[in-house]
């Protein structure tokens, strides 16, 4: 490549006017120097642009000249040009063929406006979610009356994906929760010499509260986000529109198989988390408190009433319902740009974890009132 002489200018003052001699290449990479010079230049009454020595110019050069020229003219100078090359004036005419229209940037709304808008959107959001649920249930009733429409195969596939494939991560999480609870309790209970109560502590807290909650959180992060992303991508690629035109209802094909699969799988996963979590507690009890596995299990039989275990398991389908519905709903909300997939996946996980915790709190209040 041949070397390029960067843009430069010489300013010659002639009595009441100045002549700006432009030379070199006024092209995109070589303008920084002259930009500063032109910035600093204060206009006189008459200005002549001399382009005779110009070797090359591109749109950025033309734009720079126009921009400066406009500033001079606004400040009352009379500007003329001499010595422009033919192809350069062609370029100018191409770029500035139309009069300049100023468009105002869309003003950003005020804080109060945005607060109102967000509130309105949240409130109507609840409405659309309820409408989504309603539509789903109408189709559920219809499908139950026509059982051949139930997508058994899809349900099976989702059970495998959300259940069996989730076992490793749930095992690790539940085991660690068991370990953490056991560690914390051992330290406190040893102060009272009540080491044996670690069994009650682990047995009840895990089966009743912690295992369902940790399972729900893992499932929301793992399967909920997947549901949103899958359905969102299908929406972006117009697959959902295609399904509708073929008469495949998205609720029977996409929503219900996921919801039902998750509702079947969740209690099983919670049971699995119970077992692994208690095992984690047993390991710590044995190492920190010299409570053997046999003693632990023996004590557990007395301490852990069946109701605690059942309450934990019963929460499963409720949590699964919330997670599956929120995440499929968010998937359908994805719009035609790549960013919204990420946005709605985040929303789906955050919402479903929040709803799971809220639902758990509701269970606590209800069951306490019922003296269970």
């Amino acid at each position: 490549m041949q070397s390029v002489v960067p843009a430069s200018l010489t300013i010659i003052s002639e009595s009441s006017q100045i002549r700006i001699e432009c030379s070199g290449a006024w092209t995109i990479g070589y303008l920084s120097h002259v930009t500063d010079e032109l910035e600093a230049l204060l206009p006189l009454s008459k200005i002549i642009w001399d382009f005779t020595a110009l070797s090359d110019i591109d749109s950025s050069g033309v734009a720079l000249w126009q921009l400066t020229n406009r500033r001079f003219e606004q400040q009352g100078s009379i500007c003329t040009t001499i010595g422009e090359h033919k192809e350069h004036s062609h370029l100018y005419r191409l770029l500035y063929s139309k009069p300049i229209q100023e468009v105002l940037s869309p003003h950003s709304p005020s804080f109060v406006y945005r607060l109102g808008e967000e509130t309105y959107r949240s409130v109507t959001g609840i409405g659309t979610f309820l409408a989504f649920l309603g539509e789903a249930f109408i189709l559920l009733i219809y499908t139950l009356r026509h059982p051949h429409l139930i997508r058994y195969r899809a349900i099976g596939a989702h059970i495998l994906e959300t259940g069996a494939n989730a076992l490793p991560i749930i095992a690790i999480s539940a085991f660690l929760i068991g370990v953490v609870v056991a560690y914390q309790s051992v330290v406190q209970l040893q102060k009272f010499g009540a080491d044996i109560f670690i069994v009650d502590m682990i047995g009840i807290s895990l089966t009743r509260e912690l295992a369902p909650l940790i399972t729900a959180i893992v499932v929301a992060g793992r399967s909920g986000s997947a549901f949103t992303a899958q359905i969102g991508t299908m929406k972006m690629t117009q697959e959902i529109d295609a399904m509708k035109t073929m008469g495949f209802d998205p609720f029977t094909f996409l929503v219900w198989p996921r919801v039902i699969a998750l509702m079947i799988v969740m209690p099983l996963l919670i049971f699995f988390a119970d077992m692994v979590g208690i095992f984690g507690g047993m390991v710590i009890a044995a190492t920190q408190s010299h409570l053997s596995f046999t003693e632990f299990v023996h004590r557990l039989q007395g301490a852990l009433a069946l109701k605690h275990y059942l309450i934990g398991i019963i929460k499963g389908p409720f949590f699964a319902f919330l997670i599956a519905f929120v995440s499929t709903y968010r998937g359908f909300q994805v719009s035609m740009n790549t960013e919204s997939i990420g946005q709605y996946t985040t929303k789906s996980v955050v919402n479903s974890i929040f709803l799971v915790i809220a639902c758990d709190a509701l269970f606590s209040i209800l069951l306490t009132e019922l003296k269970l």
Partner: protein
Amino acid sequence: MNPSIIEVRNLITSFGETLIHDHINCTVKKNEIYALLGGSGSGKSTLMREMILLERPESGSIHVLGHDLSTLTPLEAAELRRSWGVLFQSGALYSSLTVGENIALLYNEYTDLSPKLIDELIRLKIDLVGLPPHAKYLYPSQLSGGMVKRAALARALALDPKLLFLDEPTSGLDPLSSRQFDALIQQLRDLLGLTVIMVTHDLDTIHRIVDRFTLLGEKKVIAEGTLDEVLRVDHPIVDYFFQRGAYGITR
């Protein structure tokens, strides 16, 4: 003598077992509108992707603006990438940025122009491709198909490239829009001294603005040259493409 901008010599490409190009030669000269033509799967898009450093050929050489693409250093490659603009078939505008920001990105990354000047340039480019001024503040999802192509062209033209690659520029446009788009590209070529390489199926475009083209088929170059030169070639694929002989639509 008109110097050649792109030279493809003995190019062989294969994806795994499938051979795509078998000894392909073609030459693009300065300041011409050159088209790559061929049926689906004839490897014309792949050939273009190899020219813009998105794919690597198996063997053979491609020279673009005098650089051999197979022996480029990373620095030369970066410089070369700045000297061309690419318009992708679906526009490929960054969907999280407005049209203005899509164009500004290049100026902000590669130049030290003042914000005022960048603003002026964005306005010029948007105007140049025939978009309304307020398009600057719109997101790609708010644009129609034709506007997306125009916005993508504005972005491709941002750094005043000497070389413009267009992947099916008029596909998905209505006849009037595609005629306007063709006219725009021709005007840009005439006034900015661009060299334009496009992949196209559009026979109207070929009749209207393309100077020379290559017809790919059966993994080889069936014909290269101006429309008249190609029409003189006696080959079933030429007949098929230009609807002659057995495939003829009577005029």
